């Protein structure tokens, strides 16, 4: 069996419902040793891919969650100042206080706090999966910095020297497109766009992830969500919302949708006041497949 089919099966075993596009992209990322940039709407399972990949390769997942203002000291490394200070004090008490020796000691690896990027580079054993989550939320400066790290997989700590990755980690970047990423970064990466899944795929995702939901319920839930995605909502429900909602309905032991139960649990799915009003209006007008009263 070839590798892509094998990957598909492995993903399936990890309860990730993948399609050939996802498997092919992962396969190429592993073979070509290039970072994979995954874009798509919120809640289509971008982050999950990295987690599943780490599981099926039996290796560690190192996650760097990006946010506005994320800088090198939070992403790469920082010195453990408190420990350094303590160490200096201890040495003073013991009486040997040659400044040069103290410096060499406190700027050694034992006093280094490794942040995700350095962890991934200095990782020993099988190469880890490095997930750079929501890269679009970081600043452009950080993106440029990341680019540098991703091209060399080496980091220079002035006090220590250069640390080079023994084996390149598998890198997965995700983005919600809240801002446009630089061409330089895109050029460096393989690309995968994940769209909202079609009905069949979403149904099998619900079946896999919410076994408590009956077959009929799952189909109704997915049908309604798919219908809502075509309505112009400001926050379009993702697959994770579908799963939340299906799980909520399963807990409530609903065997099928009724307007009442939809109305009560709509908050799992539609998370914006204006959207809620719109959906309730559509429901009242009988334009949504919410089952019979």
């Amino acid at each position, binding site marked *: 069996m070839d590798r892509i089919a094998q990957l598909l099966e492995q993903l399936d075993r990890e309860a990730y419902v993948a399609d050939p596009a996802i498997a092919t992209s992962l396969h190429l990322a592993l073979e070509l040793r290039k970072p994979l940039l995954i874009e798509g709407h919120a809640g289509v399972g971008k982050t999950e891919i990295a987690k599943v990949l780490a599981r099926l390769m039996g290796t560690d997942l190192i996650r760097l969650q990006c946010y506005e203002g994320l800088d090198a000291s939070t992403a790469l490394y920082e010195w453990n100042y408190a420990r350094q200070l303590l160490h200096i004090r201890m040495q003073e008490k013991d009486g040997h206080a040659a400044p040069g020796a103290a410096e060499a000691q406190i700027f050694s690896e034992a006093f280094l706090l490794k942040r995700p990027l350095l962890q991934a580079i200095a990782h020993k054993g099988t190469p880890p999966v490095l997930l750079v989550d929501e890269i679009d939320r970081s600043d452009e400066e950080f993106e440029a910095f990341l680019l540098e790290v991703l091209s060399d997989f080496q980091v220079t700590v002035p006090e220590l020297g250069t640390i080079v990755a023994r084996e390149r980690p598998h890198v997965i970047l995700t983005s919600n497109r809240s*801002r446009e990423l630089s061409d330089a970064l895109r050029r460096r990466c393989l690309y995968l766009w994940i769209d909202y899944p079609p009905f069949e795929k979403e149904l099998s995702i619900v079946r896999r992830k919410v076994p408590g939901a009956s077959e009929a319920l799952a189909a109704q839930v997915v049908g309604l969500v798919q219908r809502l995605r075509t309505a112009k909502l400001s926050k379009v429900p993702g697959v994770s919302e579908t799963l939340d909602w299906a799980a909520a309905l399963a807990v409530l032991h609903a065997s099928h949708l009724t307007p009442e139960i939809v109305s009560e649990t709509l908050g799992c799915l539609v998370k914006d006041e204006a959207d809620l009003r719109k959906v309730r209006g559509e429901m009242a007008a009988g334009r949504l497949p919410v089952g019979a009263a």
Partner: protein
Amino acid sequence: MSDLVQRVVGLCRDLRARGMTVTTAHAIDAVRALHFGALQSRERTYLSLRCVLVGRPEELEIFDEAFAALFGKQQAPAEGPVRVHRRSPPPEQAAVPSLSSWGQPGDEGEGGEDEQEEIKAASDAAAVAQKDFSAFSAAELDEIRRISARIARRLAARPSRRWKSGRRGPRVDLRRTLRRSLSNGGETLDLRFRRRKPRKTRIVALCDVSGSMDLYSQFLLQFLYALQGTVARVESFVFSTSLRRVTDLLKQPDYAAALRGLSAEVHDWSGGTRIGACLADFNRDYPAMIDGRTVAVILSDGWDTGDPAILGAEMESLRIRSRRVIWLNPLLGSPGYEPLTQGMQAALPHVSVFAPAHNLSALRALERHLLA
């Protein structure tokens, strides 16, 4: 295999001709990708090459076309076509009229029958009208300038999340402090501090000077002029049927001189409006002007004679790339006005602040709003 290499190279060339960025490194990766078992089926080849060569969702459709052209149209791609917004075809030049006598509070309805008479016909041909914009009193000008300055500063000044080390600041910079203490044998004699660097925001202002904006144009231009004079990084544009960068024209020591320059240089005052097309021009011609630190300010009533789908798409592109999109609509100040025009409807989802700007009190309110 060598035939395939040639085809891949051909594909890369084709994609480049269609406007995608495809480097030699891409081509090499594409061939390597085929090597790693992408040849078993057409679908595999398609998915592998797509993964390597495409870099953004807008390119998916272009890729599909190029791939089909080269490898023959066989069946639909595996997951069906991906629905991503793509540039719509240019608008047919519909002569949808724009209002000229709009704006007396109270008489704006939602495009009823009786309004038709007030509508200026066929206004896409720019009605050339050289105007004298100097009706404001000196005191009013001063007040506008002061408020604009405060608004501009509010928009621009924002502490960055990044730190800067120095002798003063609210927080101790441990790393530097410790480093320095070493030269005193570990004794901290001299504290180093750090503070937030100020973040430099750029403002790009796009002002509608079409016929329907007649009443407000002079007021808004005044605002634009004041904005320009306050913060270093302001870029100004005016638009009606076409877009014109006026940053340099507004950089005059006094407003009268700026206006003289404007009237001499800008010729389609009071014509019709094609906001979508003008925004498209802006997005195409000045792509680097908008980045994650840029606040885009649009001053317009949203009366667009173009295709609302274009306006929506261009607004989206603006929103994605900018920090914030602010739409100042003079009509919003009129009681009972609701943004129901198709253009406004298409634009609104992409606007983070939608506020009135028709007089001084509205400007003051805007200032308070931005503070929050």
